[in-house]
């Protein structure tokens, strides 16, 4: 099945011994020139890339306090070394968060610090050379920017910030990643990551209405570009298309229908994902975000609700107001934006929704905290609402629920292995190996409690799991959307 070895799932998690160079061969495809330019990057590696890269590094550390402080503060205590799923799954020491940072830090030290300029050997500073650039290319694309390391670092050093900076430096010299940059281009041109044009999108939604009608006998709407709707739903484009995502979208529609709240999607902002985050580009992240603002203004909605997507929720919750605000034209009684889980949870609290839990009795559930939701955002008004609300939802609609081991959930959750712009076939080996800790935790509850399904609220997690679970002996349909569970248990129609 694979031309690499799938890691063995041991009874208990083990921290592997260092295996140097184990993943040095893992590299994503380079973006072609035509996909670089629309994002404002040179089409190919520029001749004087060294100077430009070093200057860019200086520029970025002057623009981002995080970068400057993180580059200076690491004491090499090693606390983060066993926290990254890519290290645990590959044993490559450059996948230890601090070692990954050091690939960038050693160049920073060489050119920007006294110690590195005059005593490079002593402090581990190094010139920027082709082989360093190679390492950057390889290992900054082996970080899913999941922030697990930042939870355990005594100074809160977030390797994701370093990876983003490194990717931005590489973009600025013309070495961009094909997967991310092509996708951002599609959003600019067409409106979503999948490149689904308006007509196809509307067709899909109509088809969905028919399918749901066949299923329920009810006219549940899946509207697009409907002016004057109350809510603009911004959801990852995977929701329009692929299993298991689309069952989540069906679920959202049922909730809106049952609550009697008018809503619409937008063909212009038909994408919640924002890959500008992954490549660390404020400008691109802002450009993608502005589409949502424009769509909301254009459609005259009063609220914005985001569908199930992890990094999209990070950008929406943490950055949208900053990047594309202020949203003073929306209803001030609701947070901007809201997560669909918050939306459903609020309705549930108000007693506006009725559930028949037994509809999910054939499932024994566990829940995967997606990294960006867990460690880079919030739901509700209290810290940790991002853990409590999805769980409260699942418990309200399922009789059988078990959490995975405590050090693998909530703030300590393990990435699915495909986040941060790595969800591409050219990184398959990395994706499979990086999912080891999550698969191990899943196996625990499967064996102990007979768990049958893993629920998630992230399009990347869902795609990644349905792809890699078979490598570990699970079925690809064991991953489902939280709002599929909601949709299945929701009692529709008026009470008799």
């Amino acid at each position, binding site marked *: 099945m694979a031309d690499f070895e799938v890691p063995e799932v041991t009874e208990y998690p083990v921290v592997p011994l260092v295996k140097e160079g184990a993943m040095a061969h893992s590299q994503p495809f380079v973006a072609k020139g035509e996909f670089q330019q629309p994002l404002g990057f040179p089409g190919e590696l520029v001749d004087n890339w060294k100077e430009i890269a070093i200057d860019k590094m200086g520029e970025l550390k002057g*623009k981002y306090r995080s970068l400057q402080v993180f580059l200076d503060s690491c004491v*090499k205590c090693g*606390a983060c070394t066993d926290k990254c799923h890519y290290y645990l799954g590959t044993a490559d020491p450059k996948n230890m968060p601090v070692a990954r940072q050091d690939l960038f830090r050693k160049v920073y030290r060489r050119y920007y610090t*006294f110690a590195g300029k005059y005593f490079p050997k002593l402090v581990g500073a190094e010139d920027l050379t082709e082989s360093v650039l190679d390492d950057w290319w390889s290992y900054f694309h082996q970080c899913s920017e999941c922030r697990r390391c930042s939870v355990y670092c*005594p100074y809160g050093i977030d390797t994701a910030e370093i990876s983003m900076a490194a990717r931005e430096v590489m973009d600025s010299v013309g070495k961009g990643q094909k997967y991310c940059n092509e996708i951002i281009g599609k959003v600019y041109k067409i409106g979503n990551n999948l490149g689904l044009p308006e007509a196809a999108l509307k067709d899909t939604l109509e088809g969905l209405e028919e399918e749901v009608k066949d299923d329920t006998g009810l006219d549940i709407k899946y509207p697009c570009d409907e002016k004057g709707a109350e809510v603009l739903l911004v959801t990852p484009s995977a929701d329009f298309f692929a299993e298991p995502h689309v069952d989540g979208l069906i679920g959202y529609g049922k909730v809106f229908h049952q609550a009697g709240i008018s809503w619409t999607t937008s063909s212009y902002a038909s994408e919640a994902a924002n890959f500008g985050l992954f490549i660390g580009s404020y400008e691109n992240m802002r450009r993608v975000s502005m589409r949502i603002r424009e769509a909301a203004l254009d459609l005259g909605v009063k609220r914005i609700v985001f569908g199930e997507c992890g990094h999209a929720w990070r950008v929406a919750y943490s950055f949208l107001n900053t990047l594309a605000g202020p949203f003073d034209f929306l209803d001030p009684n609701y947070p901007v934006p809201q997560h669909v889980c918050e939306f459903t949870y609020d309705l549930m609290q108000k007693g506006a929704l009725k559930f028949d839990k037994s509809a999910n009795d054939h499932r024994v559930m566990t829940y995967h905290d997606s990294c960006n939701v867990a460690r880079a955002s919030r739901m509700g008004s209290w810290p940790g609402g991002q853990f409590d609300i999805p769980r409260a939802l699942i418990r309200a609609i399922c009789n059988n629920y078990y959490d995975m081991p405590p050090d693998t959930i909530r*703030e300590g959750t393990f990435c699915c292995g495909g986040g941060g712009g790595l969800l591409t076939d050219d990184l398959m080996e990395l994706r499979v190996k990086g999912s080891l800790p999550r698969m191990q935790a899943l196996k625990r509850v499967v064996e102990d409690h007979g768990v049958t399904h893993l629920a998630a609220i992230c399009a990347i997690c869902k795609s990644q799991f349905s792809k890699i679970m078979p490598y570990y002996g699970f079925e690809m349909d064991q991953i489902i959307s939280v709002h599929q569970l909601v949709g299945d248990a929701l009692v529709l129609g008026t009470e008799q």
Partner: protein
Amino acid sequence: MSALSVVYALLFYAATVVLIGGLTYKIWQYAKTPAPLKIPTTPAPVTRGGVVMRLAREVVLFESLFKATKWTWIFGWMFHLALLLAFFRHLRYAISPDNPLWPLVSLPVVQTFGKYGGYAMLIGLLGLLGRRVFVDRVRYISAPSDYLMLLMLLGIAGTGMLMTFVSHTDIVALKAFVLGLVRFDWQALPSSPLLVVHLSLVALLMLIFPFSKLLHAPGIFFSPTRNQVDNPRERRHLAPWAAQLETESK
């Protein structure tokens, strides 16, 4: 007065200037660099007061490190606590009894615990060194400077303890020397090889502080993942350079 006394007097002035100047520059640099996006590691406090508590737990208890690895935590915490005690204990050389800080410095806890705190410091440092040498992951990430830093601290602690427990120096003369420095009225440095080594290493520590990973001390207070309030939906968080993007694109 010996040449040695003059050299050491000058050395300590230089080290003080470098330490204070260097740290001031770094702190100014951290403070003026914008943090353009809200990136607290969540769950994060939703109020300023909550952030103060989070930072306090981080600085006093090493909360995150505790979550990460108990061994590094125990050694690291022991070392830093002992360092704090040693600092207070040493203050008695630099201030006179009429100083308002004197009652604090002369507390028996500070003086007695401070004395035996030396052992805690040694154990902490040796533990950290052991981890660096024997855990393959930590060995991999260690540069020569990481070992030397520990050896330097061990040298400071070791010579200090030797002077406390084995070969006493003339601390009255030492106090006169230090007070002389403070008052710009130089006095002779007691001639003890242990003291000279001890003081040289301390001066070295002061000199490299602003150029090394010791910057983690001010760094923690500026770390956006730890010091930001989680309120991005309520408030915009626009850095000056980002605000400029807005006016340009209009």
